[in-house]
């Protein structure tokens, strides 16, 4: 149980430091808990780590995921049909931290977290060794309550910034960023795309003027080619819909292997 004395935020920092030391991009993998079925999640998460995943984002399914494209929407609907709850997500995270000492975050919408109560959420995450949350419908303007509950436990809420975020907003908000900064690569919802968003390099450069934290790029990142194109731009990449697509396409017995190999290809593409 010694690992539990290390808090989740330290695991995040360690994950980026390790990738940097290995001269590659950190790979953040998103997986909707309970997709395609409840029993699939645990082996898939381990396969993702075996493939070299640095940080795991556990997707908390929500009935109305308004920042997500069709892939995550469908995964979310499937997970809810499978009866997945926030407790299940925290339990998966706790297992992964205990067994693999992994850097784990929850990614989910405001309402399930709000319903749980931010204080209780904080103590549950802390007990599980989960680093914190990413909440796509909670901009800095609405985060004060959650931040107050998270601060004493050292938990982090990772902010998202978008190509539409103006410089003055970055200057105002980035000083309070914790853990790492998540840049949305495109103007739109999640989902695999053929090409990288045209504004991503500009956004990362604008962000770096206001922070020394590691910068990860997500939304739309789907292929090793995308990852390779971000070498020298970002510190990490976050891949979600493409991961779900790989799992969804594979035959049931091959899912874990397909995911491990896909993650490995992303990790390799990020080496300089």
């Amino acid at each position: 149980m010694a690992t539990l004395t290390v808090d989740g935020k330290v695991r995040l920092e360690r994950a980026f430091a390790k990738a940097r030391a290995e001269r590659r991009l950190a790979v953040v993998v998103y997986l909707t808990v309970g997709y395609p079925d409840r029993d699939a999640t645990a082996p898939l998460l381990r396969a993702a780590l075996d493939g070299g995943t640095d940080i795991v984002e556990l997707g908390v399914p929500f009935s109305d995921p308004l920042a997500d494209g069709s892939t995550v929407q469908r995964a979310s609907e499937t997970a809810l049909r499978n009866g997945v709850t926030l407790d299940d997500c925290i339990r998966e995270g706790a297992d992964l931290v205990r067994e693999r000492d992994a850097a784990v975050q929850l990614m989910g919408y405001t309402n399930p977290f709000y319903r749980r109560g931010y204080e209780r959420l904080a103590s549950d995450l802390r007990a599980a060794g989960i680093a914190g949350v990413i909440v796509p419908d909670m901009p800095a303007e609405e985060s004060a309550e959650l931040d107050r509950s998270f601060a004493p436990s050292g938990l982090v809420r990772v902010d998202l910034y978008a190509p539409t975020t103006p410089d003055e907003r970055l200057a105002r908000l980035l000083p309070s960023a914790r853990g790492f900064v998540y840049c949305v690569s495109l103007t739109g919802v999640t989902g695999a795309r053929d090409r990288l968003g045209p504004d991503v390099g500009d956004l990362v450069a604008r962000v770096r003027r206001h922070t020394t934290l590691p910068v990860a790029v997500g939304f739309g990142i789907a292929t090793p080619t995308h990852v390779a194109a971000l070498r020298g731009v970002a510190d990490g990449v976050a891949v979600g819909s493409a991961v779900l697509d790989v799992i969804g396409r594979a035959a049931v017995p091959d899912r874990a292997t397909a995911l491990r190999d896909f993650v490995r290809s992303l990790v390799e593409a990020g080496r300089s």
Partner: protein
Amino acid sequence: MSTTGRYGRFGGQYLPETLMPAVGELERAFDDARRDEAFTQEFDRLLREWVGRPTPLTDASRLAREVGLRRVTLKREDLAHTGAHKINNALGQALLAKRMGKHRIVAETGAGQHGVAAAAACALLGLECIVYMGTEDVRRQHPNVFRMKLLGAEVREVDAGSRTLKDAINEAIRDWVTNVRTTYYLLGSVVGPHPYPAMVRDFQSVIGREARAQHVERVGKLPDVVVACVGGGSNAMGIFSGFIADRDVKLRGVEAGGLGIESGKHAASIVGGREGVLHGARSLVLQTDDGQIRETHSVSAGLDYPGVGPEHAYLHETGRVRYVSRTDVEALEGFQLLSRTEGIIPALEPAHAIADLPHIRDDHGADTDVLVCLSGRGDKDLDTVMERLA
């Protein structure tokens, strides 16, 4: 209300970061427009010449006798162009979009009334209009789909979630996130992130201003009770806003009780919901213990929504407005009652307010003057009612 769009602890802007600059820009544009006399004059002119305002106040004396009240007056939003109050807001926002230089409009619709109003306003002003509508609602409200197409709008079906209004809003927001630089989101109720609840209320406040003046002129006093149906709550905020400062006037919102609150199959977010965050605002929301948004039920598609405007949540908490619910069965009775006594076929939404009249008599006595917001006409609901009464 503060400038950050909060009503007590309700309201706010729970949105993806991508949209945060856009809602800031919208807030500034709206503040600027409502201070600009040229804008308000053009809005007023079109309300008169195109919408047909002011809508009349009708004395419903046979209805009043039937339900045992001294006086019932109806604010006739059913006589506004396109058949409901929705046109007031659609026109106001379409004018604002044009002023902002945004020529691509997206909107959501449930029953189709807001979609038709948005399509009509866009046709009038020469704007491109895309309306998102759940596949379940497309099936239930086919004539309105055809009307929107005639008016030049593109109707996009949403085959996700419960395939109704809430999913149409999700999809409209996704479109907005993707095309935010060129696109204006024309939201149809007093829900969503700030500034929508305040802006939609302001565009609908013409209902309350007219009704207050008309009632005083006709009756020589204010009504004792003002009643309106509440889904998202735009017709109610519109008429209530004219009377909020009149502390002696009782305000009453009627939610969709569906098959009864205890059945769990209803759309009464205030009477049966809990605090939560949906579609960009903190309000009262129908949800599970795990924070998932629940599917709703109402005979009236326009009230079939699991949330309610944040200002309503606040007015409920402060006690300024009393919220009750009436069931599908009661609404159908109200629908027939008004048709039979006054020669007016109401939409199923305000039929819930009509159905509340006997309860208002029970609560406030027979010597009561009640003003009802008759938010829309019932043509769109004839199929539903025929099925139910067969």
